[in-house]
């Protein structure tokens, strides 16, 4: 583990000096992690998650020189991803307001193609349920629940990523979780 951290530090140093191989190595290392988080943030829209992953790494490359290693690289990447996600969402909201197009509740599922037909259907239904329940949450609660419950980040990490206090994270998390629990507890128990 210590060796990994050390080798990562070396990779970061090399990448900051412009080493393309080190950059590629870091992208390869974190691509899946960021993609999984992006998929959850983008309401299970695979295509959007790929775009967000790509945007995150493009920003990572352009801002790499400014990375001062105060936080871990993963936290920094999450921060970039959340920032890009919120930026994209603002743009999408503006666009939606402009054309008065109402987003369908099952948005995003058309891209989630799963290998088995039955499995895919059940998976889609579950995702539909989750998204429906998530609609009751505020934007901040959604974001924190996605990062904490779906992605499994630590409360401290989320506070760092969003630039807020741990206490604030907990408040939003408990409220969001309470809303989800009220709507999904039956489903969770019958499937559990």
């Amino acid at each position: 583990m210590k060796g990994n951290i050390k080798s990562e530090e070396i990779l970061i140093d090399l990448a900051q000096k412009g080493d393309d191989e080190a950059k590629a190595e870091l992208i390869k290392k974190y691509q899946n992690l960021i993609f999984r988080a992006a998929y959850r943030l983008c309401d299970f829209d695979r295509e959007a998650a790929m775009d967000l992953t790509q945007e995150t790494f493009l920003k990572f490359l352009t801002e790499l020189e400014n990375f001062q290693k105060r936080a871990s690289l993963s936290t920094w990447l999450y921060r970039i991803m959340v920032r890009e996600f919120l930026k994209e969402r603002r743009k999408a909201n503006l666009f939606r307001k402009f054309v008065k197009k109402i987003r369908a509740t099952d948005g995003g599922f058309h891209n989630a193609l799963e290998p088995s037909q039955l499995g895919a259907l059940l998976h889609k239904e579950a995702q539909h349920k989750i998204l429906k329940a998530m609609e009751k949450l505020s934007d901040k609660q959604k974001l924190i629940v996605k990062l904490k419950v779906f992605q499994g980040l630590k409360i401290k990490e989320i506070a760092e990523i969003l630039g807020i206090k741990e206490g604030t994270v907990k408040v939003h998390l408990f409220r969001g979780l309470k809303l989800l629990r009220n709507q999904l507890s039956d489903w969770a128990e019958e499937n559990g």
Partner: protein
Amino acid sequence: MGEKCAYLEKVILLILEEDLRDMEDVLNHIKICPVCSREKKVLSSLISKLREHSEPQPLTLSEFTHITSLIKTHPKKSKRSVQNFSIFKPILAFAIVILLLLGTLLLMNRGPKPSLVNLTPEDKEVIEKLDLLRELNTLEKLVNIAHQVPEKRSQRTILRRFTVFRSNFEYKGRNNFHV
């Protein structure tokens, strides 16, 4: 979360964070508290379901290649000019210092600006009577032309002195002083 228990928040944190300082206390409490025990069961199941259904299929090789290829083809922010500047910055600074030194040396070698204080009384007299001498010179030339009389020796001497003084003065002053 309908029924209340003082430990409920800690129970949720235990499920979410999985490492608490007083974890032993909370776990012991869950064993004896039906509210917290049920809450732990429901929440654990819910969280596990949420994680399971929010997990994407791993990126396929083509998707992975697609993302990385787009990243690779992305035009990088050109830092070349800035880098070059940073490399040449000390050289540029050194060149500027050298130029400034050379400039200072050249200025010092120009010599002092001719001052009227250092002039001899004769030179001063010439300067004071400069206009008069000019007029005299013109008048003399006119008279010479009219009468075809040769120049007087004394006037010629004064004029020669004036001419010599003027050329010397101009040379020293390097055009700073024009008579």
